[in-house]
C-alpha cells in the first residue's frame, strides 16, 4: 500500500516534471519561520519573480508556533503552502506520510546533483531514510547553534584584570563548556557601565523545542548520544549515560547560576533581546541571526564577537537549518519545482549567502574567500563539521515533546534529578518506538 502510494507520487512528479513550462504564471506561497533569513529570502526571490513571471507570496510564522502550525497544516492536507522550508526533523514524517514530493527524478532531469551540497547538510536536510539517496528536500539553509559575546566588555582592562585575579587565566572566548560556565558566572550580576549585567542567555523555552535545542548544546559535547548502536533504538546507557547526566546537570547549573532573572521560558527572541538590551555578556543562538547581530547599530560591529559551541569531551554543535520541499497537496507543483531549480543555481546560492542566508552549496562554502567573508563564517564551517541532530523519525514531534517536558521539569521547575529525568525520557521514547513497531 505504502509503496504503491510512493510509486504513484513518484510517477506524478515524473509526469509533472515533463511539463515544466513558463506558460502559466502562478502565485506561489512559500512557508517558513518569521526571522531574519526569511526577509533575505523575500529579497532574493524578487529575481525569481522577474525571471519566471510567477509571483511569490510568503507565510512566515514565528518560531514558537512554527512547528505546531505547519505540521498541523501538513497533517490536515492543507493547500496553504506550495513550498515549505521545514525543519530538519520533519523530513521523516514528511516523506513517510506523503507530505513532501520526492525530488529524485526532478533532480536527475534538471541535472541538480546533491554532490554540489555539503554532505552533512544533504544528510540532515534532504534524505529519508537517513543517508539513503532518497531526497525530499533541497538543502536551503545551513544552521547550527552558536554563541556570541560582548567583545567590548571582554576587552575592558578592569574586567580582564578581575577575571585573571579570579581564575588565573586570560579572559577569552571559552574553549570548553566548563570555561563557558566560569565566564558566565563571572559576569553574573557584575556591574558594567553602571548597570547590573548577567552571564549568558540560553534556551529554556517549553512550548516548542527551545530547551531541548539549548540543553543538547551542552549534552552533546559531554557525550550524550541517542543510541548505543545507530539505528537500533537501544537508548539505555546512551541517553542516560553518566556523561549525559553530567551534561544535563551542567546545563541546569548554567541556568541557575548564570542567566538573567525571569529567564524561564526563553528562546531565540528572548536571547536576542537580552543581548541587544545589554543584559548579558554572552548568548547562544542560531547562526542564522549572526548577520543581523553583526549589523546591529547598537551592539554589533566591533562590540560583538562570535564563537562556536565549546566542546568538552568532544566537539559538537546542535544542528538547526532546513531544506526546501514541495508540498504534495499543492496544486502548483510545477511552479514550485521551478523555484527549487532556480534556487539551486550556484549564482543564486552565492547571492543567498551575501544577503544573509546560509547557503549549503559547496561552491559557496569551499570558496577560498568564504571563511573571511564574515566574522562568523569560519565558525560556521567549524560548527557544521560537528553537528548532531535530534531524532528525525516520523514520530519526531512526540519524541521532542517528551524531551521538552522532562528537561523543563528538571532544569526550570527543579523537580527530580538529572538521572531520573533521562530515565523517564527513555521510558517515554521506548513507549513511542514500541507504538511505532520499531522496538
Amino acid at each position, binding site marked *: 500500500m505504502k509503496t504503491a502510494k510512493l510509486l504513484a507520487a513518484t510517477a506524478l512528479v515524473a509526469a509533472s516534471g515533463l511539463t515544466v513550462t513558463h506558460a502559466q504564471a502562478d502565485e506561489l506561497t512559500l512557508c517558513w519561520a518569521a526571522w*531574519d533569513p526569511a*526577509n533575505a529570502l523575500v529579497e532574493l526571490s524578487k529575481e525569481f519573480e522577474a525571471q519566471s513571471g510567477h509571483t511569490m507570496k510568503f507565510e512566515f510564522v514565528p518560531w514558537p508556533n512554527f512547528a505546531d502550525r505547519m505540521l498541523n497544516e501538513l497533517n490536515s492536507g492543507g493547500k496553504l503552502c506550495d513550498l515549505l522550508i521545514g525543519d530538519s526533523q520533519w523530513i521523516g514524517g514528511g516523506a513517510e506520510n506523503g507530505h513532501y514530493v520526492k525530488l529524485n527524478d526532478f533532480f536527475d532531469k534538471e541535472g541538480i546533483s546533491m554532490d554540489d551540497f555539503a554532505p552533512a547538510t544533504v544528510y540532515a536536510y534532504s534524505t529519508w531514510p537517513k543517508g539513503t539517496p532518497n531526497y525530499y528536500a533541497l538543502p536551503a539553509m545551513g544552521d547550527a547553534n552558536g554563541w556570541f559575546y560582548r567583545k567590548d566588555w571582554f576587552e575592558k582592562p578592569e574586567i580582564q584584570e578581575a577575571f585573571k585575579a579570579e581564575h588565573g587565566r586570560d579572559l577569552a572566548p571559552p574553549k570548553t563548556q566548563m570555561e563557558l560556565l566560569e565566564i558566565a558566572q563571572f559576569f553574573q550580576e557584575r556591574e558594567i557601565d553602571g548597570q547590573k549585567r548577567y552571564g549568558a542567555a540560553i534556551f529554556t523555552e517549553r512550548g516548542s523545542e527551545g530547551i531541548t535545542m539549548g540543553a543538547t548544546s551542552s549534552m552533546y559535547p559531554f557525550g550524550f548520544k541517542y543510541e548505543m548502536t545507530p539505528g537500533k533504538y537501544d537508548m539505555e546507557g546512551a541517553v542516560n549515560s553518566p556523561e549525559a547526566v553530567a551534561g544535563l546537570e551542567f546545563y541546569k547549573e548554567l541556568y541557575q547560576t548564570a542567566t538573567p532573572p525571569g529567564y524561564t521560558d526563553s528562546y531565540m527572541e528572548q536571547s*536576542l533581546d537580552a543581548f541587544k538590551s545589554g543584559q548579558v555578556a554572552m548568548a547562544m543562538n542560531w547562526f542564522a541571526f549572526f548577520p543581523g547581530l553583526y549589523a546591529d547599530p547598537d551592539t554589533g560591529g566591533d562590540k560583538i564577537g562570535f564563537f562556536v559551541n565549546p566542546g568538552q569531551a568532544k566537539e559538537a554543535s546542535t544542528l538547526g537549518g532546513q531544506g526546501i520541499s514541495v508540498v504534495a497537496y499543492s496544486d502548483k507543483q510545477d511552479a514550485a519545482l521551478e523555484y527549487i531549480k532556480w534556487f539551486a543555481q550556484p549564482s543564486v546560492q552565492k547571492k543567498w549567502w551575501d544577503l544573509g542566508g546560509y547557503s549549503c552549496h559547496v561552491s559557496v562554502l569551499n570558496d577560498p574567500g568564504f571563511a573571511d567573508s564574515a566574522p562568523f563564517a569560519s565558525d560556521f564551517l567549524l560548527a557544521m563539521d560537528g553537528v548532531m541532530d535530534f531524532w528525525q523519525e516520523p514520530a519526531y514531534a512526540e519524541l521532542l515533546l517528551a524531551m521538552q517536558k522532562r528537561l523543563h521539569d528538571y532544569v526550570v521547575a527543579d523537580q527530580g534529578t538529572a538521572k531520573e529525568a533521562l530515565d523517564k525520557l527513555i521510558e517515554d521514547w521506548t513507549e513511542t518506538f514500541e507504538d511505532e513497531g520499531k522496538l
Partner: protein
Amino acid sequence: MSSYSITEPSTPQKWFAGTLVVAYAIITLLPLVWIITTGFKSPVDAIAYPPKVLFEPSLEGYVNLFTTRTRVSPETLEALPPPESWYEEIVRNRDMVIAGPSRYGERFLNSVIIGFGSTFLSVFLGTLAAYAFSRFKVPLKDDLLFFILSTRMMPPIAVAIPIFLMFRTLGLSDTHLGMILLYTAVNISLAVWLLKGFIDEIPREYEEAALIDGYTRFQAFYKVVLPQAATGIASTAIFCLIFSWNEYAFAVLLTSGTAQTAPPFIPTIIGVGGQDWPAVAAGATLFLVPVMVFTILLRKHLLRGITFGAVRK
C-alpha cells in the same frame, strides 16, 4: 436603630460601598487601559522601568502592526529617495524600510467574515427552532433542549479531534465555510436557549389574535412575533458575534492561514528582533474595543446572555 436597614441604605453606607466598588473598578480596568495606552507608546517607552504613565504618544505601534519591515544598512538608507508618507518616515527613523503590508488586515477581515457569517446562520436557525420550542409541542422537547445545551460541555479540544478529521476529509480545513459552520453549531445552543426565553415572554394572545384575523401561522410568526422579538434577536446576535470573535481553540487548531482569525494571530505578532509590545497592544486594541462598545450597548441583556437565559432580570 433603623440606620442599618438593608432596603434603605444610609448615606454613609452608600459612600462606603461606592468607594470600594469604584476602587475595584479602577484596579480591574487598569490592564485594559494599559493595553490601549501601550499601543500608543514608542517601543522604548513601552518597556521603560518604572512603567511610564506619561509618555509622548507615537503611532509606531500601529505602523508596525500593519507593515512588515526589514532592517537596511545606513548606506542603503541614505541612497533611498526621501520618505513619501508619515508612516514611512517613522519606519526609516528605525533604520528600516517597509517591505509590505502585514497579515493583520487579512486576519481581522477573516474574523469579521467568520463572525458575521456564523452569527447570521445561528440566529436564523436559532430563531426558527426557538419559536418551535416555545409555541409547539415538540416530541422529546426537554430532552432536545438539554441535548442542545450539553453540546457546550465538551472541551473544545476534544470536539476538535473529530472535527479536524472531518474537515480534512471534506476539504474544509482552513476555509471560511468550515469555520462558519463550526461556530454556527457551537453558537446555536446559546441562540436557541436565549431566543426561547425572549419568545416565551411575548404573549401568545398577539399571535392568536392575528390567527383569528386570518393570518396563517407563518405570517403570524414573521409579522407579529419577529418584530416583537427584535431586541432579543439583536442581543442574541451580539452574543453569538462576541463568541465567534473571541474564540481561540478551534481557530488555532483548524486554521493556518487563509481562514485564520485574529485571536490566534495577535499573540504571534513579533517585531524585528524582540517582541514588539506596542504593535501587539495596537492589534489587541483594535480587536477589543468593538467588543467593549457592544458590551456597553448590551448591558441590559448581559446577564441573560452569559447564563444561557437561565437568569433573567
